[in-house]
């Protein structure tokens, strides 16, 4: 069984890109789908951990197998959320998911005559595409383990850093990090980013600055930084142009 981790090269030849989307367009459409499932999930009291996080992973995996041209991101987003709710023991009725979507994004969803049927139908495609491999590990659990790893750090500082890293993990679902990097490594990278942002020094001077080496060997600083850049790219790109500006999908 695969661990559902793709090499970075695969992101250049996704089904959508092979079907004509540019890399920039696809990245934007991924963000839009994630924004939809995240906001609809919030409206239904779902949390990033675990339901929205799991739904986002399904979404990103799905579009490594199918193209955005074949399956609209707006319906896939709802099906991923609906399915994740059932898998994570926090099920929502399909009609409630669809009602929340129409309420929050009327311009996107009002045109669907039978949205419930579309979401249900796509669930079947999802299950086949994901091969019923529905259990997803998220970075949050690994992050909490690292909280105990820095006994020399001030307790308030480590709590602060973990909280910031938690927020970074929430936002990382808008990137493709979850399909290129294992959850534990995402936790490491984003905790490292939190330390850097706050100027915290997690290790003593004579210790290995790569504090994660005990758990993940041969993961150099530069690779950790590159993972951080995916999240930083998202912040920079959406600072000027928020995802789903005016609650409309982009068209090209």
């Amino acid at each position, binding site marked *: *069984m*695969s661990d559902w981790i*793709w*090499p*970075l090269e*695969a*992101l*250049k030849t996704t089904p959508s890109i092979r079907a*004509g989307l540019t*890399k920039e*367009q696809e990245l934007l459409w991924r963000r839009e789908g994630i924004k939809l499932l995240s906001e609809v999930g*919030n409206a239904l009291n*779902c*949390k*990033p*951990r*675990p339901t929205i996080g799991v739904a986002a992973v399904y979404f990103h995996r799905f579009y490594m197998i199918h193209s955005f*041209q074949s*399956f609209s991101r707006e319906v896939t987003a709802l099906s991923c959320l609906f399915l994740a709710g*059932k*898998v994570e*023991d926090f*099920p*929502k*009725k399909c009609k409630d998911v669809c009602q929340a979507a129409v309420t929050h994004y009327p311009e996107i969803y009002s045109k669907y005559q039978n949205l419930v049927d579309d979401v*249900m139908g796509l669930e079947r495609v999802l*299950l*086949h595409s994901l091969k019923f*491999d529905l*259990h997803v590990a998220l970075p949050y*659990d690994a992050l*909490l383990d690292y909280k105990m790893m820095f006994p020399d750090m001030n307790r308030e500082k480590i709590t602060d850093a*973990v*909280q*910031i890293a*938690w*927020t970074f993990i*929430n*936002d990382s679902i808008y990137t*493709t990090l979850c399909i*290129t990097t294992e959850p534990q*490594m995402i936790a490491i990278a984003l905790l490292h980013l939190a*330390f*850097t*942002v706050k100027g915290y020094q*997690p290790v003593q*001077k004579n210790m290995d600055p790569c504090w994660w080496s005990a758990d993940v060997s041969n*993961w150099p*600083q*530069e*690779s950790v*930084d590159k993972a951080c*850049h995916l999240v*930083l790219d998202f*912040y*920079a*790109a*959406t600072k*000027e142009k928020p995802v789903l500006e005016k609650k409309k999908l982009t068209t*090209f």
Partner: protein
Amino acid sequence: MLSRVFSQKGGSTKSPISKNGTNEMTQSWHSNHVNGASSGSGSGSTPEHHNKNIFSFLSRQSRSRSNNPSETMSTVPLNKNSPSMPPPPSSNTVADFTHLRRRRPRSAHYDPNTITLPAKEEVTPQDVNDLYKRIDKLGEGSYATVYKCESKLDGSIVALKEIKLQFQEGLPFTAIREASLLRNLRHANIVSLHDIFYQHHQLTFVFEYMKMDLSKYLEQNVYGLDSIDIKLLLFQLLRGLDFCHRKKILHRDLKPQNLLLDEDGVLKLADFGLARAKSVPSRTYSHEVVTLWYRPPDVLMGSTDYSTSLDMWGVGCIFAEICTGAALFPGSKDSHYPGTKDQLDMIFSIRGTPDEKKWPEVKTLPGYTPELFPRYRELSFIAVNPMFTKILKTGQELLGMLLQLRPESRVSAASAMLHPYFASFPREVHLLAPSQSIFRLKELKDLRSL
């Protein structure tokens, strides 16, 4: 039977980190400006140029960066063995999704949204009915029917479980959870899910075939099992369950009907997910998990904050049952919640009424009503049934550790396997690979009488 992934006590959807008394985490960085976020003042043991590298980007024009985001990760970390694509699906089904694809008319102008894929050559799907021939119906419930079947390809025998679908909510989440969890549980003492078919508006699981369940086996042994068989079966139950618990998966419906046996005496956990949830859309944990006779007292009194200890009570009940041939706590069901008085009375009459000094948390349970029960003292198992002599004092001690009223006091599966009750087993039994049966060891193989 529900299995679920559990996490930290107090709820799986909230961070245990609190700030100003609240557990709500900021959900997006954009709404949480932290001091230092936009400066390059980071310091510490990390090399200075790396900090600059991260922050110099923040001040750069986004277009120059986001145009080629994937280019920034030119190397794959060496420790990752990433496949280029997931392997082919394990299911032989290739479903036709053509009717679900969105097709738009081509317009005069070039528009990527109107791109249509060239028609793909569809692989003829293999029909589950063409692959398997039904031999017998093994059982039927409200939500599934199980058939003994023969493979038309190689003659092997399997068990097909056909899930009845209710169309209101798509696939039932219990089936989704069973499929999801079993795909990650490969163990000699857990039933193997070979394949999944989703066709003809029906979901079919292909399981390895097992001869019978423990409940049926007990019907043939009304005075319980031999002492050695008790020990062999209990150890396998604990072994499979420990594997689940290490993966943070609770079975949540342990009972003899869900424990399968083969001709060689191998026991396997089964039925991970078909129990009916109480309701949708609230969270599905509830006091309705676990069949009544095997439900622990904390859950009977309304606790929803359970963990692996839930399953360990079930193990204790089963241990007692294979010893005597009869359920230890066969209470009757009342019509309202917490209408579990009879079940609780059965439990307390043997294990004693809760002692608030030993179990202070019991006072917080919504269904704790001490005035409804007589003051019971804990009985020895021999006093309950002389047949408990079969398991000797060590077995009775272990049984007591499993059937602690207080969930935190119940022994874990891992610790139970190390209990002196199993001292006669060879040490190597703890070193077997998960996929290896305990009967791989000659000493245990020779003990079998099933």
